[in-house]
Every structure is written in structure tokens, then in C-alpha cells.
């Protein structure tokens, strides 16, 4: 087997896709500016009936779930010590760090008083589920940044080259980086375990968030086991997210996808997804809420789509070796699971939520959609930028000239 090594990918940054994404990002940023100049009411369709929209339902709730690749791969690679998966840990870590950063930004722009975002650090309400989620996400984000630090030190140790008058500090910075690297190496296990524990905590608490809405939430989704369902689905979506992103990255940079690793990962997804599905179906059977599926309402339709396309079909696909052997099959199955979890979070926070007094139904405004799309675009742009600067994506180490061709000149 060829030896894999993480390395910055030297490529041209701007491609037609990147330019398109930049336009989307710019459009989002313009509406974001409008939100800060004219207020939340001017940009969003939020009302007293629907206080939370897609900025919470998609940007935050789904964003947290889809960043689950970070803790699932950390558990797999570092805690289970499955070394063969080390190639996927760094991209997953970067996705998680970027994802959670954008979650924090999304929370901030949705807050009525964003400048008070630090309040939960001092003003504690232990009964509040949101408080728990908020604190856990804050700590986990810090942990993610710490976990990312070794990549930074690896990139710059021996290569510190400050511009201008700062040049005299080069050796000092290098020394500090080496010190940091050494310290991190010895203590990293603390942060890795903490990251997994914190993820389990807030992924599940995110599910508890809507429990307090009580009868405002449609019975198909309102269940006391919501925290368990959220945790299970987050665990199930972590690896598909990694698979999808790995396939897209290798395609976009013209690398050979690590199909054998991805196939092994995909084989792990099926049981995880199966457990989630069992609990989900068990829940509607035990609470006898499946009766709501006999009538056609937006809720029942969305629930069916979520379950069928987000869980049942991809599960069936992953059980077939034919699918897991092909890149396209892997991509479609992973994509469906990712979309399924996205839909689930959206359903929980938006579709299932019906206020007792509703005069107008909520549909996101152009501004809300623009900001959400803009953030997704920005995340992809940042990802591309980061993998070009830092050693994140693993490529076969150049041992034989043959490898050079298979990676199309990734390393000069």
C-alpha cells in the first residue's frame, strides 16, 4: 500500500464553481449587512407566531448535526485507534471547525442583541436546554480549534517567515511553535475525549430543545426520546458527510478518491443508520402517532419524505455491495443521508412547529435564504482555501514516479 501523507494542495484557487460560490456568498453578505442596518424584521419573515426560522432550523440545528463528522472520526481514529482512517480525520476536523464557527456566527446574527452573546458565560440558567447547548457548543468550538492547532504547527515549524521588521522574531516564533507542538502532543488525548463527550451532550440536548414547545410541536416529532434520536442521527450522519466531502474534494482537486477507505466507512454507516431507523419507527409505533400518516398534511408528507429518502432508501443502498463499490453509489447514498438529517432538523424546528394562534404561515424570505446559501458557499470557499494552505488532505507520498501521474502533479 502506498504511504499517505497530508499536504497542502497547490492549485489555482479560482475555478468557475468558486466564482459562482463567491457570488452566492457576496449576495448573502449583502443581506446580512441589511439585517444589521435595518433589523431582523426587515430581512426575515419571522413573526411573533414563528420566532425561529431557517437561520436556526438549518444554519444552526442542521449545521451542528452535519458537523458530526468531527467527533465520529475522532472516536474512530483516535479512541478506537483505527489507524487506517487517519487520512479522513483532518478533513473531518476542518469541516467540523468551520461548521461550528458558522453555527456560532448564525446564532449571533439571529440574536436580537448579538452584542450580548457572551451573557450565558456569566448568567447561568441550569434549567434551560438552550443554555446547555450554548455552553457545550462554545466549549466544543474551543476544543476543535485546539485539535486543529497541531496542523498549524506542522505547517509552520521550520517555515516561519514573517514579513518586514518582524523578521527578527522568526526564530522566537518557531521556538514557541515547537513548544506548543510538544505540549499539544502530550495533552491532545484530553481534548479528543472531551470533544467526543461534548458532542454527545450537545447533539442530544439539541433534540431536547423543542420538547418544551409541548403541544405546539406535531406529535409525529414531539417525543421524549428526541435527544436520543438527535444523537443517533448525528452519529449516523457523521461518516456519510465525510464520505461525501472526500469524494467532492478529490473530484475538485483531481485526486484519486480513497475508495477502499470510504467503502469501509460506508459499511459502518448501515448499522448506525439502522439503529436510528429502529428507534424512529419504534417511537411512532409505541406512541401510536403513525395514525397521523394516514392523512395527507404537510407534516405527514414531510415526515414520509424524511424517513423514506433520508433513511430507508440509503440504508437499503448501503446494504448492497454493488453500491458501496461504486463511487457514484457511495456518493448518492451519503448525499441522501445528509439531506435526510438536514430535512429532519428542518422538520423538527420548522414544519413540526405550529403555534396555537397562527394567522400567517412561515416561509423564509429571500433575505433569509440568501444568507443561508451565502454561509454554505462561504464554508466551502473557506474549506478550499484552508486545504490549500494547511496539510489536511492526504495524498500518496511520492515514492515512485508513477504516483506523480495518478495525482496529477499535486506535489512539485
Amino acid at each position, binding site marked *: 500500500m502506498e504511504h499517505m501523507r497530508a499536504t497542502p494542495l497547490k492549485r489555482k484557487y479560482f475555478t468557475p464553481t468558486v466564482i459562482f460560490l463567491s457570488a452566492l456568498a457576496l449576495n448573502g453578505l449583502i443581506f446580512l449587512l441589511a439585517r444589521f442596518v435595518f433589523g431582523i*424584521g426587515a430581512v426575515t419573515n419571522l413573526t411573533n407566531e414563528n420566532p425561529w426560522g431557517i437561520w436556526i432550523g438549518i444554519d444552526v440545528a442542521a449545521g451542528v448535526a452535519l458537523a458530526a463528522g468531527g467527533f465520529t472520526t475522532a472516536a474512530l481514529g483516535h479512541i478506537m485507534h483505527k489507524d487506517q482512517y487517519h487520512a479522513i480525520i483532518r478533513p473531518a476536523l476542518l469541516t467540523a471547525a468551520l461548521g461550528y464557527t458558522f453555527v456560532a456566527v448564525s446564532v449571533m446574527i439571529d440574536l436580537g442583541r448579538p452584542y*450580548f452573546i457572551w451573557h450565558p458565560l456569566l448568567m447561568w440558567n441550569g434549567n434551560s436546554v438552550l443554555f446547555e447547548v450554548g455552553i457545550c457548543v462554545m466549549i466544543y468550538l474551543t476544543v476543535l480549534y485546539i485539535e486543529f492547532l497541531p496542523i498549524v504547527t506542522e505547517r509552520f515549524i521550520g517555515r516561519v517567515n514573517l514579513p518586514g521588521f518582524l523578521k527578527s522574531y522568526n526564530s522566537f516564533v518557531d521556538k514557541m511553535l515547537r513548544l506548543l507542538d510538544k505540549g499539544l502532543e502530550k495533552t491532545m488525548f484530553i481534548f479528543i475525549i472531551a470533544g467526543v463527550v461534548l458532542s454527545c*451532550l450537545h447533539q442530544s440536548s439539541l433534540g431536547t430543545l423543542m420538547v*418544551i414547545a409541548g403541544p405546539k410541536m406535531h406529535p409525529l416529532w414531539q417525543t421524549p426520546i428526541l435527544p436520543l434520536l438527535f444523537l443517533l442521527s448525528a452519529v449516523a450522519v457523521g461518516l456519510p458527510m465525510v464520505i461525501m466531502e472526500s469524494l467532492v474534494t478529490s473530484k475538485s482537486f483531481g485526486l484519486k478518491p480513497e475508495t477502499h477507505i470510504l467503502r469501509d466507512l460506508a459499511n459502518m454507516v448501515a448499522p448506525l443508520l439502522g439503529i436510528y431507523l429502529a428507534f424512529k419507527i419504534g417511537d411512532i409505533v409505541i406512541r401510536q402517532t403513525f395514525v397521523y400518516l394516514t392523512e395527507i398534511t404537510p407534516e405527514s408528507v414531510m415526515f414520509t419524505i424524511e424517513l423514506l429518502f433520508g433513511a430507508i432508501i440509503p440504508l437499503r443502498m448501503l446494504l448492497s455491495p454493488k453500491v458501496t463499490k461504486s463511487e457514484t453509489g457511495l456518493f448518492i447514498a451519503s448525499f441522501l443521508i445528509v439531506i435526510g438529517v438536514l430535512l429532519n432538523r428542518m422538520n423538527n424546528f420548522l414544519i413540526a412547529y405550529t*403555534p396555537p394562534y397562527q394567522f400567517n404561515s412561515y416561509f423564509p424570505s429571500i433575505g433569509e435564504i440568501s444568507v443561508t446559501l451565502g454561509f454554505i458557499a462561504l464554508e466551502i470557499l473557506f474549506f478550499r482555501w484552508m486545504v490549500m494552505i494547511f496539510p489536511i488532505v492526504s495524498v500518496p507520498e511520492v515514492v515512485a514516479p508513477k504516483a506523480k501521474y495518478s495525482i496529477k502533479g499535486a506535489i512539485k
Partner: protein
Amino acid sequence: MKEISRRNFLKFAGVSSATVLAAGDKPVKAAPKNILADNRMGALVDTTTCIGCRKCEWACKTAHDMPTPSIDTYADRMVFNKMRRPDDTALTIVNEYKNDAANQFPINVKFQCMHCDRPACVSACIVGAFTKEENGAVIWDTDKCIGCRYCMVACPFQIPAFEFSEVLKPDIKKCDFCFDRTQQGLIPACSEICPMEVITYGRRKDLIDAAHQKIKNYPDRYLNHVFGEEEVGGTSWLYLASKDFNKIGFPKLGKDPAPGVSEAIQHGIFAYFVPPIALYALLGGVMWINKNKKISDEEKEL
């Protein structure tokens, strides 16, 4: 040596996972109940006597320094053509419903924050900006609020309103039971102005007794139900009516306090930090075992 420590670890893992199971197994107690003063106050609204003059709306706005047109304009009954809700410009509103028994006398119902005994907003608020006061009022602290609007998601009566049009310092607006006035010994502005004495302000306990007495005295006039006596664990505002409460704008709610389930789950997941710490220890153990296994495998290969 290795074997012994591994056995020890397994013992430890067994103990810690048993702790987790035990913690999850017991019927987890919800958070300590809000300490409710026995002599806390309340307001009893007799919807059968309300004539829909809406003077309470005017008095409320005046007492809270909110912009309002002159009191004469409130005589206009056209507003009843549309159902309204309390919002950031009006902390209380009156709606009109059809009276099947006597068409010429429509039923008017005043709505405002119900001041729950176990308020969902108090439980939900991330920074504890909402508090249940000893006299029964649920009030909101502008210095703490970060504007997350989770209170609005949580409230079973859909009461807290947000100033969506405000850019710099949007407030959460809701009836505060005239907390400033009651602190000075005054009664709530809406109760004070009401010409029909629809709103009786007094000790909640006494009001419940009075309400049941009224029902007993006039069984034809009232439904045998005091709304707010038991709904979501009891509210400070109590209502009497002649018509099914769900048909005059009240949501169908159970007797369990709104935050009960979520607090039980939340405190179950955390239970004195035992589950998180146990999980941490368990993962640490797994990591350690796998690392050692890896090293011994490599040694064997060599």
C-alpha cells in the same frame, strides 16, 4: 502486568456504566419547583361580564408608557372584526366571540400573559432573564436578555412578543402584571380601570374559592371550569366563562407544567455530571486499551 490493569479497567468500566444506567433508570426528578408564595396574587377574569370597552387596553398602554391614541377611539368596535393577539405594541387585547345562547351579547375575552406558576419562559431562558416573582408576576429583565426568542418557542400561550422592527435594542414585550404598580401597593392598571369589574385582583387562593363559589351560585351562567386553576400547572390569571374555553380563544392544554418533561430530560442527561464524567472515563479507558493493544501487536510483529 498489563492483564491486571486491563481487568481493573473492565471492573471500572462496569461500575461506571452501571452508574450511568442507574442514573437513567430512576424516575428522574424535575428541577426543584419554583418556590411559590402561598399568598401570591392573581387575577380572576369573568368573561361573562366583559362588555368589550377595551379601556383595559388603554390603561395598560398608559401604565407602560407605550404610545396610544386617546381613550375615546377605543369605543370603535370595528377592531373586533379581526382576531388579535398581544404583541410588542399592546400587552393586552380584547377579542370578541359569538355567543350562541344570546346573540346580542357577544363574549369578550381579554388576553395577556397568564403568569404561569411553572412558567416555560423562565425554564427556557438561556440567561435567566425571566423570573417568577413572589407575588406571582413573571417579569423580564432587559439587562440580561440576548434576544434569542426561545421564550417565545416555549410559551404554551404564545405570549412573549419581540420587537422585530427594532435594530439596536429589541425588547421582549409581555404583560408584567404591573409589577411596578403592585410593588407600590397599587393594583394592575387594567383591573383598576375596568368599569364592569371584570378583573378581580387578589390572593390567588381566594380567587379560586370565589370562582368556584360563583359557579356554584350561578350554574347556568358558568361552565364548571376555572381556566388557569390547573392548566400547565396553574396560572396566576384565572378565567370564568359560559362557553367552552377552546372556542373563545384558549389553547387546549394539559395539567402538566410546560417545562416538566424538558427539565426532567435535561437533568437526567446531566444528573450531577455523573453521565458525562462516566462517558469521559469510559472513552478514556477504551482509548488506552486500544493504544496498548496496538503497541503489543506491533511488538509481536517485530
